[in-house]
């Protein structure tokens, strides 16, 4: 489909048109400054100026907590679907940032991998209509250009919107995207040569505003090559407060734990919850033995895992999309950007 444009003023009508087939989610401000993905309603203005959300959109597909199934009478065990289950509409996300769209594609690959498909999560991701919003300027912590994940995408979305001032240009790449636009075709017009010019000028300009730095490539390489002395890891790890925030805000982190929670008389929910490899108990065994008891080992593990191990041989890329959330959330300066910069500077 050739690029289309839509006036910013009628964007709500477009989202309203999608609401029949989809559960529409868009970034919204909560309590003043924080932006989250929340159910879109036409009384909430669509925010086009946010940098990014507090937590990545993975929370929509891989929620922080969800019921896998419900258990009655545990010794005799009647299992049934959890309370969140049931036919829900597929998600339509408007305003996905390029980094997060890349992260979502990463999660899809991960949850489909190693011979076992996580149907629930894959169904949510695969049925979703992803409408990205190309970035116009970098946030303070952003480094997507160093991670091949932005500031705009050439693939990996259904529709990519670019803000041209009073209108948005829609770059449509999939049948799902075309169908979505067809359902509200009166709101869209074919992009004019002027629109396309403005668009291409914008992309070029945006590209120039995002600083390309070498720390990602260099840091990743040095980690993989084992160039970082153990003392460095130990020194850095002293600043890790073990909050787990870096994992929770990461668009590609996918570790979880599973627990049985009481949910009534003699009834339980088996729940999955986000877990973090920085937690001391992450690898602790029932006997009390913990193969990764030292903080330095856990920190090292996180960086090897995200930057080297599985990502390079199975996922085809490292596990960072440069969204910068860990930069904001880490209390100890052990986020990917800062630590890889330190590796770049300190560990030749």
């Amino acid at each position: 489909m050739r690029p289309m444009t839509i006036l910013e003023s009628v964007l709500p009508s477009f989202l309203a048109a999608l609401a029949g087939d989809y559960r529409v989610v868009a970034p919204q401000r909560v309590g003043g400054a924080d932006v989250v993905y929340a159910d879109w309603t036409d009384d909430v203005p669509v925010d086009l100026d946010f940098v990014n959300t507090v937590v990545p959109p993975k929370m929509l597909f891989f929620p922080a907590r969800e019921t896998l199934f419900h258990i009655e009478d545990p010794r005799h065990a009647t299992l049934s679907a959890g309370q969140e289950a049931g036919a829900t509409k597929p998600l339509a996300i408007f305003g996905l940032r390029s980094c997060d769209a890349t992260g979502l594609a990463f999660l899809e690959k991960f949850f489909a991998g190693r011979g076992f498909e996580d149907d629930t999560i894959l169904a949510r991701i695969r049925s979703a209509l992803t409408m990205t919003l190309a970035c116009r300027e970098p946030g303070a912590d952003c480094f997507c250009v160093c991670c091949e994940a932005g500031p705009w995408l050439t693939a990996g979305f259904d529709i990519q919107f670019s803000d041209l001032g009073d209108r948005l240009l829609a770059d449509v790449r999939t049948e799902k995207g075309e169908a979505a636009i067809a359902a509200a075709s009166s709101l869209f017009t074919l992009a004019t040569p002027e629109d396309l010019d403005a668009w291409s000028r914008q992309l070029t300009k945006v590209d120039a505003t995002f600083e390309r730095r070498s720390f990602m490539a260099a840091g990743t390489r040095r980690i993989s090559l084992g160039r970082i002395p153990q003392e460095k890891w130990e020194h850095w790890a002293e600043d890790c407060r073990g909050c787990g925030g870096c994992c929770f805000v990461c668009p590609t982190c996918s570790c979880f734990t599973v627990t049985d929670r009481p949910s009534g008389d003699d009834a339980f929910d088996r729940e999955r919850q986000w877990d973090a490899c920085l937690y001391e108990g992450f690898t602790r065994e029932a006997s009390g033995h913990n193969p990764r008891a030292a903080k330095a080992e856990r920190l090292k593990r996180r960086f090897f895992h995200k930057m080297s191990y599985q990502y390079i041989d199975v996922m085809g890329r490292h596990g960072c999309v440069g969204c910068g959330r860990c930069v904001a959330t880490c209390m100890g300066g052990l986020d990917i950007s800062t630590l890889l910069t330190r590796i770049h500077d300190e560990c030749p």
Partner: protein
Amino acid sequence: MAFHPSTCPYCSCACALLLHEENGRLLGSYPRAGADGRAELCMRGWNCTSSESHPDRLTAPMVRNAGRLVRASWREAVEEIASRLGSAASPPLFALGPTLANEDVFAVRRLARRVGGRVSTTDLSGVQAARFALRQVLGTGYGLPNLETVAGADLIWLVGVDLEDCPQVASRVTQARRDGGAVVRFDVYASAGGDGSRMVAMPPDEFGRLPLILQQAVIVANLADPEARAAAGFEDLTRYWQAEPAGGDRAWLSDEAALALVREFRFARRPVAVLGSRWLTSSRAEENTVQLLQALVLLGAANHVLTAVGEANSWGSLDVLGAEARPAELAWREAGLDTLVVVGDDLVRHSPCAAALTETLDRLRTVVVIDRFAGDTLRFADVVLPSCTSAETDGTTTNVFGAVQRWRRAVPLPGDCCPERLWASRIGRLFGVEEWPATAASWFDAMRYEVESYLPILPERMYGENDAVSAAGDDGLGPPRVAGQTRVRLAAPAGDVASTDRGQDAAFPMRMVLGAHVANWSTGTVSQREELLRREIPESTLAAAPAVLETLGVKPGWTAKVLVPGGEATVTTRADLRLPPDVLVLVPLGGSPPAQLRRCCPGPGGRSVGVQPIPARLERA
């Protein structure tokens, strides 16, 4: 799907957070970049999810019948309580945990007054000592205005601070250090090192001398800050120190070293002193902290002191309870007590003197428990009422800097649970008081007329129209300091303060080392994700006095059996980086009951918390 801006209920840093709710359940808690510019939470904050399905959650009132607690209607339970309060032989004691909203503390206080009872606090985080000293020396209720002051400091003194205990303070210290700030740690054991800070290792039986050494150094070198010179009592203090013979046999801090320290601090541009839980929960903490604050006043740092990050609402509880509140620990020891109402704390589990406490509880005619979770205190309860968590009700909480913030209701109340204020009014009505505020906002309004420092805070600010979107951090008000400037008062140390406390601390050199570690982290039980938090909570570790272990020949990495009342537990011993090399930590292995281990504490408790030496036999397994 909804997001409720609220405040973390786990410590009095009170970080702003967003509660993510869907279908009446909390799915997650996320940090808020918008509130204070930092999208940070510690492990506890990241795990504030629902507690409605916690295995220990109380959801129905219970009354003891033929020795067993049986489910009752709220009316029956409330009537039972009222009749027991009404027939108490001595004034009932209401012991309040530090995790109640201000409104709930106020409501319980009002009920206590109505029934002729007294209030006390079960808080063990050292906030009382800090509060006492702040009022005594500075005339204010609070120290530093915010955490960022720590981050921006060029010199930080950490006095008895366990940074592992308080991630938010630790992160600011890290930031300050990264920006070139210097850090000096005063503690009772040598640091594991590696973090670039300097260490003043205080012998466990002499740490009480630290403030005096500092005071003397300032006065003798004539370094006192001009404002301190103008303060009441400065002349007395000067005369005292000029009369005091200089020097002393102190290998750990010579006069010369002390002078260098005070000089550096006095001339730092942005110095900050942090008094941690190990200092504030040590023996004689109130007197020692008064002296330490005086030393800091002399150094011109009256407004550069951060004291005791306490539990969720340690600070607000003390604001609301006022001077009449005393530590529950002291209150329940009084003879003649026959009725105890424990609100929002598991007294038995958290008491440093559980053995003596359980004896008392056994003897009492009436024990009422109002709490969210079934704890060890329930064994002694005659009536139990279920209360709610900070995500299930509206209320305010006051942080360590005195900012009043909102807890917002994000999920429904499970079962018969309701906030303490509602239980208080239901009981109060049976005592003839018909008029009780109906909403959180009206409770707040009633409270501010009786709690002077909250008077300037209009209820509309806390419970306004745009409640749903206003940010906890943004509309945080305060600090509720007494208006005007600080009123510094100095006084010469009383004679006995200068003497060391050798006898008491020699009995257990570790008493100060472990401090309030447990008290602070054990709030993890409030979380649905207890399993996850339990993996991190340091409460299941014990330290034994080196001498005890030496006698038994126990070495790091060994497995030992600890015999405790009611059973035995298998533990592994490990050297902890945070402890001196000759001290071992005992870590219960899977299946061993940490709760039982906690109970093996000696008789006269002092002020140390939770973790105690093991008087029971240690056997090599």
